[in-house]
C-alpha cells in the first residue's frame, strides 16, 4: 500500500480524532467502524482468521508504550509470502496504528514495536499475502494507565 493509501485509510476516521475533551477524560472512546478501512486494503476479498499471532501483554500498565509483536506463520518463500501488515486499534482516536511492507529480503513475517493504546481494547492485524489472500489475528488488552496522582512538570 502506498503512503497515499495509508493516508486515505488513516484519514478515513479523522473526524473521530477530534473527540470532545470530556469524552477523552472519561475515556469513553467509542469502538470505531474500521470496516471501510479494511475494505480499502482487501478490496472486499475474504480474510481468513488464522496464522496471525498478535502478542501483547494482557495487562498494559501504561498505554503510552505497550510492547507488540506480530508473527505470521508463513514460509516467506518467493511465491508464498507475507507482503504487508496493517495494525488497527479500534478505540484509538486514529485506529490505523502502522503499516509494514515487506521486501524479498525479509526472513520472517515478524515485527516488534511499541504502540499507544488509549483504552482497553482489541488490537487487530491484517496480513496481505502474495497471491491476493488475506489473514488476520487479534488480541484483547487491558490498559491500566498510570495513577493520576502526579502530573508531568
Amino acid at each position, binding site marked *: 500500500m502506498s503512503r497515499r493509501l495509508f493516508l486515505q485509510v488513516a484519514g478515513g476516521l479523522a473526524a473521530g480524532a477530534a473527540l470532545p475533551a470530556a469524552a477523552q477524560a472519561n475515556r469513553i472512546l467509542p469502538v470505531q467502524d474500521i470496516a471501510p478501512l479494511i475494505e480499502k486494503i482487501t478490496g472486499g476479498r475474504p480474510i481468513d482468521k488464522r496464522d496471525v499471532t498478535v502478542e501483547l501483554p494482557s495487562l498494559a500498565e501504561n498505554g503510552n508504550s505497550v510492547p507488540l509483536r506480530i508473527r505470521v506463520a508463513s514460509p516467506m518463500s518467493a511465491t508464498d509470502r507475507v507482503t504487508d501488515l496493517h495494525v488497527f486499534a479500534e478505540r484509538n482516536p*486514529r485506529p490505523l496504528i502502522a503499516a509494514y511492507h515487506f521486501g524479498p529480503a525479509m*526472513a520472517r513475517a*515478524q*515485527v516488534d514495536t511499541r504502540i499507544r493504546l488509549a483504552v482497553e481494547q482489541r488490537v487487530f492485524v491484517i496480513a496481505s499475502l502474495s497471491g491476493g489472500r488475506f489473514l488476520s489475528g487479534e488480541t484483547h488488552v487491558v490498559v491500566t494507565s498510570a495513577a493520576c496522582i502526579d502530573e508531568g512538570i
Partner: protein
Amino acid sequence: MAIARLQVPSTVRAGEAVEVRVLVQHPMETGFRREADGRAVPMNVVHSLVCRLGAVEILRAEFGTGVSANPYLAFWIVPPASGELVVEWVDDAGAKGRVAAPIAVS
C-alpha cells in the same frame, strides 16, 4: 538533529537470518497534547521509515499517532549481499533522519 540507534550484526553467513533493530528519538506528537500554558502541540510523527541494503528495499513502514514516542522497530532479514544497511525516515514537519551500518556477508 536526530539521534537514532541501529543494531545489526556486522558479519553474517550467506543465507543466515539476522535481526535488525531500530530506535529513533522522536516525540511522536499526537496533536492532542497541550503545553503547560495551554497551547496545543501540533501533530508531528515520523510518518514513513524505510530500510534498504544497497539498492534493495527490505522494509517500508508507515506510522500514525498510535506508534509510541521514540519509535522502536525490530525485524528479521536475510541479507542478500554485503553492503550498507540504511534506515531513513521523515516526519510531518519534513525533518529527515538516517542511520546506517555496514553488513559483510561471507
